[in-house]
């Protein structure tokens, strides 16, 4: 099955982290294009700053690869093969995890521009003129290489996050299912980041994102349904013993008490075209009450979540939580500033630069 060479969860984790990192890089590039750091005046400064950004990002990426490789390598040599006899059980668990990851990440895609804005603000604040703390060569160093340090730290942080998550979900996946999704995730994330940098027709991008997200959620709902199906199949195989595999698609290959429909053909686990149907939509030739109900519940939950998120966006708070939300927002934004690690970087620049930053902030598309 495709899961032997392509672990969906790993793909999505790497995709998301790469996306976020490439958003940061693209925003930075956009800023310096707009002239932050005196780059508008001097093309060599511009080129230097661009190089800084790429060196910082590249260095972070390299360290991630090394750390990641070492981590995953030791993980696999220490880990044992628990795939074995409870195949359906593991498949069920993995499917549900993948479905959850995709679900959480999916909606963020549609607010990609919002993500970009968030980063614009963060980076702008980081570049803002403010009280300079600390003295000496360290401050000088960070001032000079701020454009490299920022992407370096971002890429490093996103990368480590990715490694930890991937380690977690790959606990029972085969080592073969590793390289392909990582490469694909990196590629996909970089491509989307590049599109954002280039800007282009916002609406066209949004349509594309909507279609992609719909597709994503079809896959996720299918995965969720298949996860539940796998659990029920595991119980059945345990009850009957080894004979189930002999039954193919026929009577005895499924539990009649839990079955909602069954056709003696079109097996999504074994026959050609139907496997694609199975991979995309979660089609099973022998559906259980559990698999169908979970499919519908998944969509219902999604609809409710979207509804809630839209409500928040329109009104600034979740339904019935107006009072509580206002109370929370009263806490000063300074808390946010302190949380952000970028602020540990010494601020640099003059008031001129601060003005440039603000201009860049409002003018960057």
């Amino acid at each position, binding site marked *: 099955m495709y899961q032997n060479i392509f672990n969906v969860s790993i793909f999505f984790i790497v995709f998301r982290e790469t996306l976020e990192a490439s958003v940061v890089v693209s925003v930075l590039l956009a800023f310096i294009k707009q002239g932050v750091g005196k780059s508008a005046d001097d093309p060599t400064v511009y080129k230097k700053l661009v190089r800084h950004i790429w060196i910082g990002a590249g260095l972070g990426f390299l360290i991630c690869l090394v750390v990641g490789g070492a981590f995953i390598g030791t993980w696999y040599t220490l880990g044992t093969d628990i795939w074995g006899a409870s195949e359906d059980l593991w498949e069920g668990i993995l499917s549900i995890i993948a479905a959850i990851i995709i679900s959480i990440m999916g909606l963020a895609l*549609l*607010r990609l521009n919002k993500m970009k804005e968030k980063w614009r603000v963060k980076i702008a604040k980081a570049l803002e003129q403010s009280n300079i703390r600390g003295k000496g060569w360290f401050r000088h160093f960070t001032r000079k290489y701020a454009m490299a340090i920022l992407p370096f730290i971002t890429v490093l942080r996103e990368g480590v996050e990715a490694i930890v998550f991937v380690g977690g979900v790959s606990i029972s996946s085969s080592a073969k299912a590793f390289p392909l999704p990582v490469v694909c995730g990196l590629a996909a994330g970089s491509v989307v980041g590049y599109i954002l940098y280039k800007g282009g027709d916002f609406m066209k991008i949004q349509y594309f994102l909507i279609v992609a997200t719909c597709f994503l959620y079809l896959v996720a709902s299918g995965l969720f349904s298949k996860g539940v199906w796998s659990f029920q199949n595991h119980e059945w195989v345990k009850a009957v013993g080894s004979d189930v595999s002999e039954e193919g698609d026929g009577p005895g290959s499924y539990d*009649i008490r839990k079955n909602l429909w069954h056709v003696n053909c079109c097996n999504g686990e074994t026959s050609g075209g139907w496997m694609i149907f199975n991979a995309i939509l979660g089609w099973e030739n022998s559906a259980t009450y559990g698999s169908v109900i979970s499919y519908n519940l998944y969509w219902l939950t999604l609809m409710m979540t979207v509804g809630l998120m839209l409500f928040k966006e329109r009104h600034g708070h979740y339904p019935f939580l107006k009072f509580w939300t206002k109370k929370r927002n009263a806490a000063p934004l300074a808390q946010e500033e302190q949380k952000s690690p970028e602020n540990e970087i010494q601020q640099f620049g003059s008031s001129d630069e601060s003005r440039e930053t603000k201009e860049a902030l409002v003018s960057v598309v």
Partner: protein
Amino acid sequence: MRAFSLLATLAASATAALAATVQYDFSVEWIQANPDGDYDRELIGINGQWPPPPIKCNIHDRVIVNVTNNLGNEPTAIHFHGLFMNGTNAMDGPVGVTQCPVPPGSNIIYNFTVEQPGMYWYHSHFGGQYPDGLRAPFIVYDKDEPFAGQYDEDTYLTVSDYYHQSIPWLTANKFLTLINPTGAEPIPDAALFNDSQNIKFNVEPNKTYKIRIVNVGALVSQYIWFEDHDFKIVEVDGIYVEPTDASMLYITVAQRYTILLTTKNSTDQNYPMISSFDTDMLDKLPEDLVWNVTGWLTYDENAAFPEPALIDQYDFYDDFNLVPVEKELPYEPDYSITVDVSMQNLGNGVNYAFFDELSYVAPNVPTLYTVMSSGNDSTDATIYGSNTHTYVLGYQEVIEIVLNSKDPGKHPFHLHGHVFQVIERSEASPDDNSFLVYDPANPGTVNEYPMRRDTVYVRPNGYFVIRFKSDNPGVWFFHCHIEWHLAQGLALTLVEAPAEIQSKQVIPEDHYAACKAGGYAYEGNAAGNTVNLFDLKGEKLQPKPLPAGFTARGIVAMVFSCISAFVGMGFITWYGLSDLKTTEREVAEVMGESLDDSDASK
């Protein structure tokens, strides 16, 4: 004509005067026993002993068996396998066919004459009860047998498979359940010789022993041989045959073979005798299963008892080629029944066995009692039920049964009340997916004088053809003698000359009393309806078939799921398209505040 019949009557009564009456009182009860030395369990014994005692009588004797059920927890019934019960169909014994189950605390009397010589056996015919212990030989001595005087001792030998768990428990939990969708029969735990193992059969040199062999098992056919000793087959299932040399027998459950074995000259050695399971019939072979059982022809108690030698292949004698002493040419059939044997799953997920599309389900009223209470309607097969698969046969006709097996297993089929000519038996089909079907236009091998017996096996995906004369009015069961398959419904009913049964036979009161004691119906059609015999409402039927494809609820589920997905995607699109002014506003807020901050700090 009158003179002849007078003479016949005189002769009969003369014989009858010489015949004795043999009476047995059987108390059927649970006995603690451990035949394979591995496992102590309760088995069904008789009169405080297990194995149950053999019944012995001479030909023409009257046998009366008074059976009292002291089991406490199960009904019972006894069938005398191979005996014709001519004129006394009610004594045949299968529950649902000729009698009700005899409930605990009740009794029933089987009273019949034996007009056949040879080896038979008796066993429970309630549910799958007999492998729980209630089975033993029934020996009929005949001083006029064709090989009289050719042997020194007349003895018997039983072989059997054996289960540690009780049959009702195995049936409910392991066999007839949806978690056994392939219908795999439970694997026996041991093989037995004379309900024991490692038996010593004491023999003297230069003597001939007549050994009546019967397989009283539930499932497995066995190969039997005596190392270094050949023997002659002289009788099968009560039919004398021309003595035939052989070195190995293949005996299915319920079959009997009587052999003459001549011992060697010297007493210096003992020789192993082996019975070995036909492991083809087992779904799987557990590692700890010992599928042979050994004994020894013991010439010298003090000599060694060697282990049996391993053999390469089973070289057994094919009983199809035996020639009866009373030779008959093949009958020409008057009425032919053709049935296909198959195993399929029904709507409750359980695997059942079928003759054509019907899996046998016992009626509410035993079929014989329906005959007795149906007057002129007794010749209409409808009244006997939709799931008893009943054929009504005429009197004094030749009936043919053609059985085409669509199953890759070997099955031993038994016909009550008769022996039959084995006209043809095909080889096994070349593979699991092809079937050999009887074609009367292209017959296979038919012997000049066909072999006769009452239990014959069909080969995988093959067929057999049998013929018999309907000269014994009665209700006769035809079924696979593998107890598991009988539980799955591999049976059909023959109502032979019902008008004759009504006019010539009587059901004894104690038989009806057993029905009443157990609360069972004993009059009317298969549903118990005494008023309208053609109204079968309330009869027992086989489970519904599995649904083929999408049922109504499946379609609803599918449609609903599609709607969910589409509406869900609609929500996603709505979210995607909803305006982003809020983001701009947030940015502006933050910008405003930070501008204030930076101004303030200057």
